[in-house]
């Protein structure tokens, strides 16, 4: 890994940590710890600029570091982030590999995966299926966050690639 790449990945990692923290302050639905998925903008950028290996690494680092920094390691919101982040990554990877979507479609897939992953984790942790009630609302919201993150990623991607 050359120095330039390392520096860029570090900068992106710190950016994603700040985004992860900021978005945890935005309330979405009445389940504490559920996030919109704005931090996945960084995952998306790295996925397009560097590749899946780097994107996965930064994603895991981000989730663990956010938990350590804000005193939530192995807590409720940590598992929500982990489950949401991993499923979002998986969805984005599949969508990108299929080659039928542009960055917008890939991002929307990721955002939807993020919502589903968080709900699955919350259902296990709270052991109540009534949380499924929130899924359509969350998926609906994630369409728009997905489009937003794609827009931002698109702009950043062109700057990095120049």
């Amino acid at each position, binding site marked *: 890994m050359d120095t330039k790449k390392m520096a860029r990945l570090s900068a992106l990692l710190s950016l994603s940590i700040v985004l992860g923290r900021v978005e945890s302050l935005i309330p979405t639905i*009445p*389940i*504490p710890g559920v996030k919109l998925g704005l931090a996945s903008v960084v995952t998306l950028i790295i996925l397009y600029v560097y590749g899946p290996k780097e994107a996965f690494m930064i994603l895991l680092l981000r989730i663990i570091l956010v938990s350590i920094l804000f005193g939530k390691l192995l807590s409720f919101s940590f598992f929500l982030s982990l489950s949401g982040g991993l499923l979002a990554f998986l969805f984005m990877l599949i969508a990108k590999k299929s080659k*039928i*979507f*542009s960055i*917008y*479609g890939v991002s*929307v*897939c990721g955002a*939807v995966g993020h919502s589903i992953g968080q709900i699955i984790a919350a259902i296990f942790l*709270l052991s*109540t299926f*009534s*949380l499924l*009630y929130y899924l*359509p*609302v969350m*998926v*609906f919201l994630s*369409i728009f966050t997905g*489009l937003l993150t794609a827009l931002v990623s698109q702009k950043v991607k062109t700057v990095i690639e120049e």
Partner: protein
Amino acid sequence: MKKADFILIAILLTLTLSITFLFHINRNKENMIAKVYNNGELVYTFTDLNKEEIFTTKGVNGDVVIETKDGKVRIKEETSPLNICSKQGWTDSTSKPLICLPNKVVVEIVGKDKDDIDAIA
């Protein structure tokens, strides 16, 4: 944006909106219960408002007959000077309780899973 993107977004929008809509309809009809209070004490709970059911409780002036049907509830018969609560007719709203002040009988509709959501929030 590619064509597949638009198709994906369109599918997701229709899916989420229609499911939310369906949830909304079912929620109002199936997740409601009606609680009957006599002189401040809970005397009976209608667990299914869609079922035809009649419950009679003894109020201050005489029997108060409460009926449920098609997701709604009403006071069918009661004895009071103005008969306000039996004239009020059917209600299916949590914000419109049936109140028989002379008989000290109150019927209120509440969500069945209200406690679940409160516990999480």
